[in-house]
């Protein structure tokens, strides 16, 4: 695998370099939707966008249908029935046309016409265009300004429905600061500073699911091994669990309740010594809900570890 990775990286780098040719279309984010309205056919008639979209600064995006009838009355032009499109589903993106017009002027095309376009193809703005003025860093630092209050608690629905919209401003690491804490990102920390010494209580009963962020073998076992906590000499060889005198011979309840904690220090071999048909103990480990037939049908190899004779 390492060799494949090693060999593939220069190839990827070369591919990136070759593909990285200049003068390509500016945006490659999700294609903005061309509006259904034939703007190009009307551009010569309208001196500016606000001739039709006069209420845009106040949030009234579209003219009334009767406005069209000024020309499309059946005599000057064929009559049409036009109704404004349905508003976009409400989300938490906080945007004010009025504020932007006041700050940047009536340059609607900066956002709604693709750069270099000569056919006046009006498109819905995409978030990529926001970044031409708003830096990525500002986007990260001012989520309240962008998304409104309580965005953190409310973004689940929109993020699930259209993740490509998020990707316009955010790299994955931005999401992972909260959703999968990054060991390299120091702030904000997911666990408090003294979590290491106090994590046993949270881990035993899985206050949160540790394995959502940590591979428990790599992360838990290696650290426990360094700390001398992993088993040596199998079960009962050292009486590590010294607060319970007979723990080695009566650990079943603790094991079934917190098996994920057991396997953070014990290997499968530790248990097979007693819980196997080939070992000296032959203690049946199967408990409530055990369906041997189903398990055998799904993975007979697992059964054969303890029942090599079938």
């Amino acid at each position: 695998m390492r060799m494949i990775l090693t060999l593939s990286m220069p190839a990827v780098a070369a591919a990136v370099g070759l593909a990285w040719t200049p003068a390509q279309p500016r945006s490659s984010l999700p294609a903005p939707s061309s509006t259904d309205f034939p703007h190009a056919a009307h551009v010569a008639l309208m001196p500016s966008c606000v001739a039709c979209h006069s209420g845009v600064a106040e949030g009234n995006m579209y003219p009334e249908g009767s406005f069209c009838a000024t020309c499309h009355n059946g005599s000057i032009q064929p009559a049409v029935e036009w109704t404004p499109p349905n508003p976009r589903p409400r989300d938490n993106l906080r945007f004010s046309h009025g504020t932007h017009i006041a700050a940047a002027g009536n340059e609607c095309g900066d956002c709604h016409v693709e750069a270099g376009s000569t056919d006046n193809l009006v498109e819905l703005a995409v978030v990529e265009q926001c970044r031409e003025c708003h830096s990525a860093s500002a986007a990260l630092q001012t989520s309240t300004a962008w998304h409104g209050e309580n965005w953190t608690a409310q973004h689940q629905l929109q993020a699930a429905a259209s993740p490509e919209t998020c990707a316009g401003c955010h790299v994955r690491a931005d999401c992972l600061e909260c959703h999968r804490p990054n060991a390299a990102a120091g702030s904000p920390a997911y666990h408090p500073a003294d979590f290491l010494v106090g994590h046993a209580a949270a881990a035993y009963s899985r206050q949160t699911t540790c394995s959502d962020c940590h591979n428990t073998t790599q992360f838990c076992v290696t650290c426990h091994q360094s700390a001398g906590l992993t088993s040596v000499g199998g079960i009962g060889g050292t009486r590590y669990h010294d607060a319970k005198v007979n723990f080695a011979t009566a650990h079943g309840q603790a094991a079934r309740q917190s098996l994920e904690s057991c396997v953070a220090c014990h290997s499968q071999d530790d248990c097979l010594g007693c819980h196997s048909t080939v070992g000296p103990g032959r203690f049946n480990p199967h408990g409530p809900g055990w369906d041997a037939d189903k398990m055998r049908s799904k993975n007979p190899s697992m059964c054969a570890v303890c029942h090599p004779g079938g």
Partner: protein
Amino acid sequence: MKPLRVLTLLAAATAVTWTVPAHGQGYRVRVDTRFQSVAYRGVQLDSVPAGEVLPGDTTVSGAAAYCPPGAIYCTYYSAGPDQRGNPFVASVDGVLWGFGVKGLRLVAQARLGWDLSNPDVWPGTQPAAYLIEGYAEYANRWLTAELGRTHTATRLGYWGFDGAKADVRLLGNRLFVQGYGGWGLGRGVALPVTSSALNPLDDLQPRERQTIWGGALGWTQSGIDARLLYQRQLDGESNNVGSEFVALDATVKPFRGFTVAGGADYNMAEGLWGTVDLAATLSSARGQLSGTVGGRRYRPHFPLWTIWGAFSPVAYNAGYASVAYSPIWGVELWGRGEAYKYGETEAESPNVSVEDSGWRAVLGGAFKRLSGWTFQADYFIDKGPGARTQGFDIVAAWRPIQSLYLVGDVRQLQRPLEFRFNDSEVWSYGLRLDYETATGVRLNGGIRYYDETRNRPDASAFSWNQFRVNLGATINFGSPTAGATHPAILSIPEVRGTR
């Protein structure tokens, strides 16, 4: 892969992105780096001739010894050495677009980590470099397709794989269909299950990578989001089932301020229900008061290339409630409580009493009425089988200017264990600084004095202290179109002062 080789490739890739004319293309890169210096102490197993053990099974030094009948040597645990780890971790997350096809991007995230003191001390530093994600993505209004090393993160866990994933959004984004498949990685890590880094105890391990495939069917509309999930893993060598799940996730917002969220997963491989949860949250119109009540059932699951599932881990059932209240502006109070009880294990023994229920609670508050200052305090307690934790923290944070953030805290906790005499009490005092430079580089650093007392009823008890240090930097950079802030935009009140 050798770290030097990875660094060379990253340098070459960076050189490409910096030097090649970027007109028409775009890229963004985020680099996170962090250095820590942290120590910990565990235990170390030692032995002594049985004849040297004193009556009462203690060593001459007073440590409790274990002497099996007839044994020549007795064993005992003493305090382990002071092990200091100095891990340095860097992750590089980048996205490139502008290849002549709208919606086509390349995404990559790599992680590099070394322990600068001893590679065996800090977890997760072997191997030193690996690719977390690296895929080509094509996205348009109704489709997002990824090809390469990608992942899926659902209630079934975080699973990476080398393969393909496609999300299709239909009916105005209301209908969601997802499918994915490929060669799987380990759960929660970008390493294959065959990696030696995932087998520190030389345990039974798959000899070939598993294949993974699954899908989702979802429906989203105003106030409703529901997902039906399916995922299956097959052992690469035997083609036996490694795991197979079906799950449902749903969130309903029937009216403003009220949310009901829940889900359940069913372990098809074992024929058992897994984790189930349901919670209702109500928030007042102005957000001053919010409360949640819920219940959950947690049952772990293990891949069938281990034997752990055969030991029949049982689930626990929990009920919980939380409330947050802001009586006046700048004052916030919160509390959360949960009680849980394990199911019948059918393995109880009169020889060993084991707790089968627990509860946990947090009470806290914050005061933010002084400009630039935040004061916060929490008390927490977690009493359950295996271990307990209780303590408090007091935090003061000061942001004199937008780009500078200082935090000082005092924490205390006690941690008794149920199955071993190894109670611990810790006092720690920390100071932390976050600063964003004018160029957008985010720097952070902190120092913590850590004083721990490990209590035991024998001579293996000890007390020790240490300083912990961490330093980090986050750098964002991108193509010129993404890098500058237009002066006109800075005049917008909402954005002014954020850079």
